[in-house]
């Protein structure tokens, strides 16, 4: 197990290096002059020249990359040209917001997707199975931004039950925090639940037809014990993979959902940074997201081994 983890950890640094090169390079392909975009409406040539020099936009690409990498290795992710704040501070401010939204979304997704998937598999080819499949299709097909606006119109404008947008930190007020996040979390979780439901159903169907499950039934165990104790453990392996990947995707910022609900998280941060050519912010956020993905994959691998002892060798 420790050899397994060490091997996985050894791949982290090369992966991060490759990601940093990729995001740096891809940004440069974006058309548009960052200094011009950020110089304001009047585009004073003096301001444009100043911005280019201060943020090394007049240097060659390899020089800019090395300067940025040096900063990263010393903990300095650079500064947002637009609002003149360290990127590190912005990330530390936004990460908890997106993390909380992601956790809530995953909780909702698991709460809906797992039971539905199990039920659909157990009641395979029945009305329950079809209803669950249709619900999953609905969840996956509806565009997030449309569902978000619909929820705002109903729950905020029509019924006045929830705030239309914005975010309150849990430290300020937990109840208001949940009130601001429940709709965006549902929008995200609803789409995820559909995916989780389908994968759980497929995995469960495969496992339920296995010999050992037949043996468990033959031994006289209750259906609940067979399904939940014997079948589910093995069916969870692909679901864990999917859950980890989807959680990583949520952490990178649910761009549309954060825009609609004005949640000040990663998604909103990176969208604004791309449009404003705020390169340092984009690079910093993508690097953090890459780290998060890698860590989540590691956790997923670790969880496999826990769930399935055969993988611990």
């Amino acid at each position, binding site marked *: 197990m420790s050899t397994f983890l060490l091997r996985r950890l050894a791949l982290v640094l090369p992966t991060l290096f490759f990601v940093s090169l990729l995001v740096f390079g891809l940004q440069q392909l*974006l*058309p*548009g*002059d*960052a200094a*011009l*975009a*950020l*110089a*304001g*409406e*009047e*585009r*004073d*040539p*003096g*301001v444009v020249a*100043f*911005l280019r020099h*201060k943020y090394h936009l007049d240097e060659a690409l390899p020089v800019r990359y090395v300067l940025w990498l040096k900063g990263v290795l010393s903990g300095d992710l650079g500064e947002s040209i*637009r*609002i*003149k*704040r360290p990127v590190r501070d*912005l990330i530390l*401010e*936004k990460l908890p917001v997106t993390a909380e939204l992601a956790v809530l979304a995953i909780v909702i997704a698991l709460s809906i997707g797992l039971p539905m998937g199990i039920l659909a598999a157990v009641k395979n080819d029945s009305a329950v199975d079809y209803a669950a499949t249709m619900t999953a299709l609905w969840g996956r097909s509806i565009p997030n931004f449309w569902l978000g*606006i619909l929820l*705002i*119109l109903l729950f*905020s*404008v029509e*019924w*006045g*039950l*929830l*705030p*239309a*947008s*914005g*975010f*309150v930190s849990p430290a*300020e*007020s937990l*109840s*208001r925090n*949940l*009130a601001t996040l429940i709709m965006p979390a549902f929008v995200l979780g609803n789409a995820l639940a559909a995916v989780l439901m389908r994968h759980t159903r497929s995995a469960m169907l495969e496992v339920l037809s296995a010999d050992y499950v037949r043996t468990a039934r033959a031994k006289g165990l209750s259906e609940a014990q067979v399904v939940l104790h014997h079948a589910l453990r093995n069916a969870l392996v692909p679901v864990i993979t999917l859950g980890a990947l989807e959680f990583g995707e949520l952490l990178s910022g649910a761009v549309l959902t954060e*825009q*609609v*609900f*004005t949640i*000040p998280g990663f998604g*909103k*941060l990176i969208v*604004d940074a791309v*449009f*404003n*050519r705020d390169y340092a912010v984009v690079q910093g956020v993508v690097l953090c997201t890459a780290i998060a993905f890698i860590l989540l994959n590691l956790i997923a691998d670790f969880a496999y081994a826990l769930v399935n002892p055969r993988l611990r060798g």
Partner: protein
Amino acid sequence: MINWRTLIATCLFGFTLSGGAAVAQTLRIGLAEDPDMLDPTLSRTFVSYVVRTALCDKLFDIGLEQEIVPQLASQWEWTDDKRGLVIKLRPGVKFHDGEPFDAVAAKFSIERHLTMPGSTRKSDISAISRVEIIDDHTAKLVMSTPFAPLLAQLATSAGTMMSPKAAQAAGENFGSHPVCAGPFKFVERVVQDRIVLERFADYWDKDKIKLDRIVYLPIPDTTVRLANLQSGGLDLTQVAATDLDTVRKDPRPKLAAVNGIGYSGITINVANGERSKTPFGQDARVRQALELSIDREALNQVVFNGEYQPGNQWVPPTNSYYDKERPIPARDIAKAKALLAAAAAPNPVVAMTVTNNPVVLQTAQVIQAMAKESGFDMRIQATEFASALQLSAKGDFEAFLLGWTGRIDPDGNIYNLITCNSPFNDGHYCSPEVDRELDAARGVEARVDRMFHYRIAAEHLLLDLPIIYLYHPKWLYAMSARLSGFTSYPDGLIRPQGLRLD
């Protein structure tokens, strides 16, 4: 029988209130985007200006008719040679940190705007060569040549006064916690979430301030911003013309509107590189034909529900500097075709760059359809904003549908956009005659004298048409019925004086 909806509403309402009672006079204003820095010297966005209006007073302000009114400067007088402006400063004014506002602070603030690296205010007041302190509350701004727009410039961000002590201590990080002399002081900012200000108890005009707090909430999506207003999450916000019908059908919010000072128009590449070498770029008759193809009032009706002001000059028809002898030309397809025939270009192909915005795209499509009737083959190239700016600066465009937020003085809507070699004259139009008149208009103070020169400039510009002006947007506001005392100003800024929540 249980009313489940009422029960759920009560529970959830309890949730939202249980975080603590709201402050009574807290005004929540929705913004179209998150401001950049709040540093008056470095900031580049309009929404930052909206926030700074409550934070930072300026030497001057404007009235409802765009006239210059005193703010931190109580009186002013030009010297005989018009190269000096003597300003009497209001006594007894304090900055938010308790430091006094005086001639030293005024000199510091103006010099900061002029000399700080990256200052976006420098070009506004570059006519000032030095600031002299006459006494504690009198300063003299000395210019190398007369510059009539100076008062108007000092009624914008370039006239913002800052605490020297706080600005020197914070340096280029002043924007993280600005310290000025406005009615509200800075409390906190969470990027992309909120900016909170609270009333400054020692404000010099505190009797006009009824609010305790202002919270600015950046909400880029117009539908969501409106939803917030309708659900009580906001008290005041700007709305798009396309949302007016929705607001009018809802009995909850009130509406206010005022003619703005900006414009939207088609900038034409007449001399910037290879792409100017088209009949459209080289021959004014082809540009005149395009203008005659456009029905500006119909455009206004279709795209903006008739809410905006059609225009054909750099100032709106309601502006005192508008040349009434050159009104908006009526649509005339026959004349347009005749002009194209005379120019030997009966079916000119024109690529029009537009930004990726639904309203701008719709405007372009209407123009395209109108122009087609005269024989134009107009191709719309939707481009992301930053890319479009770069293409425009490089001359890689033929026509660019673009707006200008507008300045109080008419010079601000024309000089740097049209004079030879000026920084945002992307079409590279150059007319020594126009330059001469615009320079002369800067050197005289009286409106009638300035108008004389603007008329001559208009004579050239409305024939050459380096920019085809189309319309002037209005500032449209929707607000809670609880809000009273709101006055809309032509510069679009929200002034907190007189605002109250009932």
